[in-house]
C-alpha cells in the first residue's frame, strides 16, 4: 500500500515537471493568442 502511494506521488511529480518543461521550451498553448506584436507584423518595433 505504502509503496503504491509513493509511486503515484513520484509519477505525478515527474508528470508535473515534464509538463512545465514542455510548456516552457517546446510548445505553449497560450503563446499564440497573446502574440500581438513581433516578427514581421509591421508593428514598427525594429
Amino acid at each position, binding site marked *: 500500500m505504502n509503496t503504491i502511494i*509513493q509511486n503515484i506521488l513520484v509519477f505525478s511529480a515527474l508528470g508535473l515537471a515534464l509538463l512545465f518543461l514542455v510548456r516552457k521550451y517546446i510548445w505553449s498553448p497560450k503563446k499564440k493568442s497573446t502574440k500581438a506584436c513581433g516578427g514581421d507584423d509591421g508593428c514598427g518595433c525594429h
Partner: protein
Amino acid sequence: MSKQINVALIGNPNTGKTSVFNALTGLNQKVGNYPGITVEKKEGICKLPRGVKAHIIDLPGTYSLNASSLDENVVIELLLNKNDKDYPDLAVVVSDVENLKRNLLLFTQIKDLKIPTILVINMSDRMAYKGISLDIDYLEQELKTKIALISTRKNKGINELKELITHYKELSTEPCLDASSIDESYFENLRKAFPNQLLYKLWLVITQDVNFGKTDRKTYDAVEDFKTKSKTDLKRLQQKETIKRYQFINETLKKGQTIDLNSAKDLRIKLDRILTHKVWGYLIFGAILLTIFQAIYDWSSIPMDFIDSSFASLSEWTKNTLPEGAFTNLLAEGIISGLGGIVIFIPQIAFLFLFISILEESGYMSRVVFLMDRIMRRFGLSGKSVVPLISGTACAIPAIMATRNIESWKERLITILVTPFTTCSARLPVYLIIIALVIPEGRILGLSYQALTLMLLYLIGFGAAVGSAWILNKILKIKSKSFFVVEMPNYKLPLFKNVALTVLEKTKAFVFGAGKIILAISIVLWFLASYGPGDNFNNADTIVTEQYASENLTEDELHQKIESHKLEHSFIGIAGHAIEPAIRPLGYDWKIGIAIVSSFAAREVFVGTLATIYSVGSDEEETIKNRMAGEVNPILGGPLFNFASGISLLLFYAFAMQCMSTLAVVKKETNSWKWPMYQLVIMSGFAYIVALVAYQVLK
C-alpha cells in the same frame, strides 16, 4: 471596489523617476514585459488618502515624445492610445531641479496632449547647495499645472504628491504651446481634415513610427495621407517645435527660477577631474572591477558553505524520518538537492546585482561609457556597449535589451552578438564549484588564487567579446549612421531603498525563473537515474552479487557496487554513454556530459544535475563539493575533476552558447533567426575546440 486612478510616471532618464515610483508603491510593485516586446514594464499600486488607490506605471525614461528607440516608443504608444487599459487618467512628469529647463521640454509635450499633468520637481534637497530658488506659484500659473516639490532622498513631499494625485480632476488640461504655430498652413489643412482631433496628437502620429494596436488603427490610417512632407522637412519642423518649446520654457524660467551661482558648489567637477582622467580614470575603473570580484568571492563563501551543509543535513534528515520508498528518495535526492543547487547561489547573485546597481545609481556608469568609447570604437563597438557588457555579468538577457540606446545599428548588432561571451551569473555557479575543486587555496599579494582565477575567467569572457567584435566589425558590411550622445548625470549617493529593491527583484527573478527550471530538471533527472530498462538494471542485485561473490566484500562495499551498476544502466546512464565518445577527448565522463546537455536549459543546472546524479543511491550525508571531489575517472583513475579536466570545463563554459532564453531574446531584438543560429553554432563550436586543446595540452 472603487475605480483606481491610472497614473503614468514619465520623465527624463536620471531624474530619480524610479525613486519616486519606489516611494509611491513600496513593495507593491511587479515587473513584467509589454506584450510581444521585451521592454520592461514596471507597475505598482499606491494607497492614497481616503481609501483611494492609484495604479502606477513607471514608463521608460525619455527626453521627449520624439521616440528613437523601442523603449521610448512604449511611452508614446500608451499616451496616444485612449483605448489602452493603462491609458493614464493622470500623467506625473518627474523632473530634476538641477535640469529643470531640459526636463520641461517633455512636460510641455505631454501637456499639449491634454492629459491632466502634475509636475514633480525632485531632488529639492539640492536646491540650497546649488543656489537655486523657485517661484512655485508663478511656475504653476505659467505651466498651468500643480507642482510637487519633493525629495525622495530626504523623503519629503511624497504625501503632498499623493494628495495632488487624489485631486487630479481639478487639474487644467490647457496646452502650453499652440501646436499650429509650428507651421500655420500645414496645421490649418490638418484641422480641416480632422475637425474633431487634437492637432498635436495628429502631429505626433505623422512624425512618429508608432503602432496603435487594432482598435485605433482606423482613426489614424487616414492620417497617412498627410505625410505629404518629406522626411527632411518633417525633421526641420520638429527642430522648429523644439526651439519654440525652449523659447517658452526660457521665458517661464526667467521669472520662475533664480540661480545664485556664487552660492553654488560643484562636487561634480572635482570628482570628474579624477574619475574621467586619462590615467587615473582607467586605473580607478580597473580597481573597482577587481574589488567587485574579490568581494563576490570572499563575502559570499560563508553563507554558501552554510547553505550547502544545511541542505545536505536536510536531505539526510528526510531520508531517516519519512517512510522508506520511491517518493522519499525523490524528495531527498532529487528535490532537496535540486533546491540546494538554486539556493546556494543567492548570496553571489545578490552581491553582483548590489554592485551593478550601485554603479548605475551613482552615475559612475556614464563616466565609464565616456572613458571607454574611443577604445570600444576600435572594435566596432560603442562606449555604450560597456553597459551591456558589464550588466552581461549578471545576465545576457537584460544586457541585450540594454543595447537599445546604442544609436548605430551596426554597433548595436555587434554588441548583441558578442554580449553572451561575458560571464553571466549563470556561469558563476559552475565556475565556483570547479575552481574550488581544481585551483589550490593560497594567496598572492592578499588576493586568493581562486579569486584571481575567477577574475581571469571574467577577463577571458570580456576578451572573447571584444575580439569577436573586432572580427565582426571587419566582416559585417553594414552602413549605418553613428550618433553618440550620452548624458553625464550628477554624482549621487545611491539610495538604499532603490538598491535594495533592485537586488531583491533580481534575486527573486533568479530563484523563481531559473529556479523552477532547475527544480523540474532535477526531478526528471532523478527519475531517469533511478529507473532503467531491461535486466541489467532490474536484476542489478543478483548480477553484482554473483560477480563479486568470490571477493568477500563487506555489505557496504557491495551496496555501493550495486548502486553504481544501477546508475550505469539507468536511462540516464545509457544516454550518457551514448554521448561519451564526443566528450571523452575533453576529459569528461558521461555524468558531466549529461550535466552539459541539461545546461542548455539554463547553465546553473550543471551543478544541480551533478548533485542529483551523484546523490542517487548514496546514503551518506555529503555536500555537493565533496561528492564531486570524490569522483574517480573511470579510465585513468585519479580524481575526475583534476586540473586538466577542470580547466577544460571552465573554458567550455566560458565560450559555449548554452542559453535558450538568450537565443530567443537575440531573435526578438534582431528580428531574425539568422543571428542567434550563428551564435549557437560558432560559439559552441569554438568552445569545444578550446576545451579539447586545453585538456590535451594539460593532461
